[in-house]
């Protein structure tokens, strides 16, 4: 197979993304997990770029890694959560806890792969870049309603976040 360096790069990034995601799930240290999540996201962004979606890649890094996860860091700093203290509870240690969910997830994966195989997806990703202009035209054309709804969602998130996080006079209930 005539290995194109960009294709190899894609697989590399995918591998990094998977490994980093596994680390996210298994780490004890919150910040380490978060850093792995950043790495995973950046790797996925690289994948996006290589798949011909540079705009999405940029947004992935700017919004996801650069804003949403910073929020996480911020929250962790506020909580002072250095370690996952819940792991100290006796129940949640050892291999057995991971076994069931992993089997479940593998079943899920197997099923999905089977479906994909079964449908015989032969399509190849086209190398053509879908640039931001096309995205923009689509967003503010046929998807205008979705944009509006998303903006409402964000507004709702803003209000909810403000409401929950504002200090209460006397032990108000959640």
């Amino acid at each position: 197979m005539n290995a194109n360096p960009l294709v190899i790069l894609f697989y590399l990034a995918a591998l990094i993304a998977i490994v980093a995601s596994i680390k996210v799930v298994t780490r004890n240290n919150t910040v380490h997990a978060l850093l792995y999540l950043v790495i995973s996201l950046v790797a996925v962004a690289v994948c996006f770029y290589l798949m011909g979606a540079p705009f999405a890649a940029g947004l992935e890094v700017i919004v996801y890694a650069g804003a949403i996860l910073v929020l996480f860091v911020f929250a962790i700093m506020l909580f002072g959560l250095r370690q996952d203290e819940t792991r100290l509870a006796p129940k949640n240690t050892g291999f057995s806890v991971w076994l069931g969910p992993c089997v479940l997830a593998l079943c899920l994966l197997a099923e999905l792969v089977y479906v994909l195989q079964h449908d015989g997806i032969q399509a190849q990703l086209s190398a053509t870049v879908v640039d931001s202009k096309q995205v923009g035209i689509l967003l503010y054309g046929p998807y205008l309603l979705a944009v509006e709804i998303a903006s409402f969602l964000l507004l709702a998130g803003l209000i909810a976040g403000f409401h929950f996080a504002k200090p209460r006079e006397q032990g108000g209930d959640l």
Partner: protein
Amino acid sequence: MTTIPLMHVLILASTLFGIGFVGVIVRKNALFMLMSLEVMLNATGVAFIGAGATWQQADGQVMFILILTLAAAEVAVGLALLICLQNKHQTLDVDVLSRLKG
């Protein structure tokens, strides 16, 4: 130039989804659950972008942007809730925070 089969992209997405999924189920810490959710959301994004790239349509990216919006709102509210929980119960262990049981 050799291009990437859509199949592989979808398998990548499925794998990421599965990993996030295991995280949601296994982790007791709400913060980690939230992070695992992010991994899952991201996986769906991969699938959308892959499909969009295959048909050279921008729809995939549009969907990804919507997912991004969703994630932003979700994290904002989720973290605010976590802060409240932490202040009130001094723990983020969802097994302890089970007062909404039937």
